[in-house]
């Protein structure tokens, strides 16, 4: 079996000079509304690349920083809504002109209080227009905003503020002020703390403390006293360059101390412009900002993209009301991690359980129609006329009301990322007419590495490289990229920068993946978890496990193969799904162990594993990882026994050790194996259970790649 070497030549379009791509994107801002309507996005991008004489002098100055975009928006979108926030039960709106006014007052106020070019300003709180303005206010005078996760404890905050040598902090409320005040001793550079909500802060010592409005008032007074100040302030903005650091975003630091990722204005603006081009966002769009401001996604979506296209950003009343507020606002784009979509689906299903018989029947019937026709419709494929009619009726009766309920009525595109999303879940939303897509990105890339283009949405991939992005896979299977969003460096951590950024400008993602025959990127695992089979083929356990776990009958799976001849797998059946099946088929069982050993269950799982093998066979990169042998474990993996972590992740090494006899049997050809192992009962007592299980041999599929695609396209 030939195994493709992973070192790919996907670098085809290295000819794209990223710098030129940046400038082109920035240029396009001027003719933005023309591009955004009508012209298909990909062509719009190319047109910009090609038709814009890059070296000629532009008629207007480059809009290469966010404050410059603010000035532009305040003139061309002056009376259009820029920010909305629900306060006292009513949506309050600020136009771009008002936003400019607010930001200018704050910016000058901060300057008067002594915030200098190059200093950092921490921003801590939930998504609030005032906090978004603080970004621009600081950037206008050359200071660098550092958003901090609002739920971080004082210790974490002390690290970030100390590391960033923060001079100012703007906090949302008393809770955050308390945290900052408790760590001032560890942040000697901190001079002022500002707060938006004065509640509970009245009796605090105001020597270092200033209310947001007081700072703005200082700015307004100065402006009244000195009419030339506005021109000076605009001049300060003009001094700013695209290559200046615009923001520092600290990674969440799940491994080791958080790192301060420094992004330039160009990173943020170009990423925003590109994303807007990709999904055709204009000033007519509305977004809801509800994800942490310290997270790069929110910074690019609700700040970079919003300023680049003049999109209106709506901030919910409180984190708890985000869902209700979304229904009221009806955003045109929506980003959420998979579990949010999972919750939405569960809620729909639970509510439908309680619905009357007519509604239930309607829902069931039209759901089958949607599953048949919905996704094809969204992908622009042809569907029979009857289905088209039925879908139209279904849309009126079921899909549209459901979308409205979820606040997705006006939605054009929804994105999910972060973890694997089940194909069923994914297809459910797409069938209902929600254009749900996946993207892949990270802080170091200013979010976007790959996105799924409309009409090319496959649940198992994360899409194609975004505009201006080039990706390649190195010999170890790790994904590397170059893009206009590539971060400048980690703040005060050259060692980590050198580890992540190669000398020739590639960035290591730390994720292992491959590019499939359609030119789509598949992420399979963290690079450090990826192993190799004896024949040298790549072995990514989590990828295989996730793929198998997408089948409802499989609750947990553990794959083995590193340093072995072939892949074998432990499977835990899902007691709810399989138990349900048993009930319907009069299969009587008294325990998990008994049900797991039932021959029909074994056949059921065998069928699923075979399906997985068949689909793996179509991907040359993972075809060698087809499962040769599997076994349904006679015991459920349990966190109490140390087999799973408390967050229910498989502890591979521990399981390999405990079930040693089974693994031995996998590779010595035995057809059955038994084991004696200790279990912890729910009341904490320990006992021994004995178990044995059959090993099922699978017939691997012949490797059948999809028709050879034009691979080079992948890297356009």
């Amino acid at each position: 079996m030939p195994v493709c070497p992973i070192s790919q030549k996907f670098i085809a379009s290295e000819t794209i000079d990223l710098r030129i791509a940046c400038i082109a994107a920035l240029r396009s801002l001027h003719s933005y509304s023309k591009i955004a309507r009508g012209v298909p996005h990909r062509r719009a991008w190319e047109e910009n690349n090609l038709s814009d004489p890059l070296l000629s002098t532009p008629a207007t100055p480059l809009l290469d920083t966010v404050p410059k975009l603010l000035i532009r928006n305040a003139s061309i979108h002056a009376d259009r809504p820029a920010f909305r926030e629900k306060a006292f039960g009513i949506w309050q709106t600020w136009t771009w002109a008002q936003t400019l006014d607010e930001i200018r007052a704050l910016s000058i106020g901060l300057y008067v209080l002594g915030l200098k070019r190059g200093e950092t300003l921490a921003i801590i709180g939930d998504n609030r227009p005032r906090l978004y303005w603080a970004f621009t206010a600081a950037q206008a005078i050359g200071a660098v905003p550092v958003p901090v996760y609002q739920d971080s404890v004082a210790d974490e905050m002390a690290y970030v503020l100390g590391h960033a040598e923060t001079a100012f902090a703007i906090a949302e409320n008393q809770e955050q002020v308390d945290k900052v005040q408790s760590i001032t001793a560890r942040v000697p550079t901190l001079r002022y703390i500002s707060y938006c909500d004065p509640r509970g802060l009245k009796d605090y010592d105001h020597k270092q403390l200033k209310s947001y409005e007081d700072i703005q008032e200082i700015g307004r007074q100065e402006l009244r006293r000195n009419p030339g100040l506005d021109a000076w302030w605009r001049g300060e903005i003009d001094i700013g360059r695209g290559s200046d650091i615009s923001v520092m975003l600290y990674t969440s630091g799940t491994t080791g101390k958080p790192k301060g990722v420094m992004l330039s204005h160009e990173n943020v603006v170009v990423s925003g412009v590109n994303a807007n081009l990709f999904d055709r966002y204009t000033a007519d769009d509305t977004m809801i900002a509800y994800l942490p401001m310290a997270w790069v996604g929110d910074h690019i979506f609700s700040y970079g993209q919003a300023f680049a296209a003049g999109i209106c950003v709506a901030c919910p009343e409180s984190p708890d009301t985000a869902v209700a507020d979304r229904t009221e606002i009806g955003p045109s784009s929506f980003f959420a991690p998979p579990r949010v979509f999972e919750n939405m689906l569960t809620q729909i299903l639970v509510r439908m359980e309680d619905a009357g018989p007519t509604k239930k029947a309607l829902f069931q019937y039209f759901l089958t129609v949607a599953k048949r026709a919905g996704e094809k419709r969204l992908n622009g494929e042809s569907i029979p006329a009857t289905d088209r009619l039925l879908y139209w009726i279904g849309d009126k009766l079921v899909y549209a009301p459901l979308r409205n309920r979820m606040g997705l009525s006006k939605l054009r595109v929804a994105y999910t990322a972060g973890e694997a999303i089940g194909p069923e879940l994914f297809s459910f939303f797409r069938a209902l007419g929600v254009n749900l897509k996946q993207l892949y990105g990270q802080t170091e890339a200013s979010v976007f590495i790959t996105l799924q283009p409309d009409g090319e949405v496959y649940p198992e991939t994360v899409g194609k490289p975004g505009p201006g992005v080039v990706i390649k896979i190195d010999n170890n299977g790790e994904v590397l990229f170059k893009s206009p969003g590539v971060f400048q460096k980690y703040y005060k951590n050259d060692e980590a920068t050198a580890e992540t950024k190669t000398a020739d400008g590639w960035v290591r993602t730390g994720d292992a993946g491959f590019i499939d025959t359609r030119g789509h990127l598949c992420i399979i695992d963290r690079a450090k978890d990826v192993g190799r089979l004896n024949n040298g083929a790549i072995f990514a356990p989590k990828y295989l496990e996730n793929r198998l776990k997408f089948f409802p009958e499989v609750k947990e799976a553990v794959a083995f193969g590193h340093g072995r001849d072939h892949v074998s797998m432990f499977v835990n059946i899902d007691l709810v799904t399989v138990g349900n099946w048993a009930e319907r088929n009069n299969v009587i069982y008294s325990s998990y162990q008994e049900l797991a050993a039932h021959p029909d269950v074994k056949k059921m799982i065998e069928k699923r594993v075979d399906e997985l093998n068949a689909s793996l066979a179509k991907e040359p990169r993972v075809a060698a990882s087809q499962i040769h042998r599997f076994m349904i474990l006679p015991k459920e993996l349990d966190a109490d026994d140390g087999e799973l972590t408390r967050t229910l992740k498989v502890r591979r090494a521990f399981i390999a050790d405990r079930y040693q006899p089974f693994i031995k049997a996998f590779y010595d050809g035995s057809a059955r194996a038994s084991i004696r192992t200790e279990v912890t009962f729910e009341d904490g007592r320990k006992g021994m259970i004995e178990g044995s299980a059959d090993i099922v041999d699978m017939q691997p599929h012949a490797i059948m790649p999809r028709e050879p695609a034009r691979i080079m396209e992948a890297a356009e």
Partner: protein
Amino acid sequence: MKADVGQMGAAGPAAGAVMLEVKDVSLSFGGVKAIRGVSFDIKRGEIRAIIGPNGAGKTSMLNVINGFYHPQAGTITYKGAQREKMRPYIAASQGIARTFQNVALFKGMSTLDNIMTGRTLKMHKGLGWQMLRYGPAMAEEVRHREVVEKIIDFLEIEAIRKTPVGKLPYGLQKRVELGRALAMEPELLLLDEPMAGMNLEEKQDMSRFIIDINRQMGTTMALIEHDMGVVMDLSDRVVVLDYGQKIADGTPAVVQADQKVIDAYLGVAH
């Protein structure tokens, strides 16, 4: 009513003028003597705690202040005027609001509507206008809604604005009840065990609200509470009742060290 809040020190807003004075009050139900000759005062701007073991007469005392019970003996002076026979609605119109030991909300109504009922006494437009819900009545409702929305914001209950209160967990119901009392914009707020049945986090939240109401709105408060930690942290002065009699009165520190109080709570070996 907010005028005297400014001079409060960090230690709390104690030491205003006497707002309410209870003098030699006795109350009995048939042969049961619930309160026996109790005297104490509540000063403007303070948080006054009333504590005591079960059956000490704490809730009866609140009911007397509230005008629900009429003491057989003794006088009550509120804002300088000695009170005649009293009805709860008169007390309410004079600026005394309260919450109850057992939540007493309208279960089928939303949080918003429940708090809105706290504004009833301040609505003046006639039934006809109200039924039309137009013109002056609408303007009035909008005005009151604004006050209610500020309270909702203050108590951080935006997410349950439209939820029927019957569906809410107990801790939140308590908060809604507090909201309804606040909607009256009271000068004196009587809280009957605001933290009963709450977990630690809910207690912390409620304590913060009580302090914020006191500091920010300048509302004077009398509260009954069993959680000693809460009482000692929140209150400026404490009066201790036992078997209907006052056994101690003073700052938390003084009361805590009082032998009679310790005996009342822990029992005395005879």
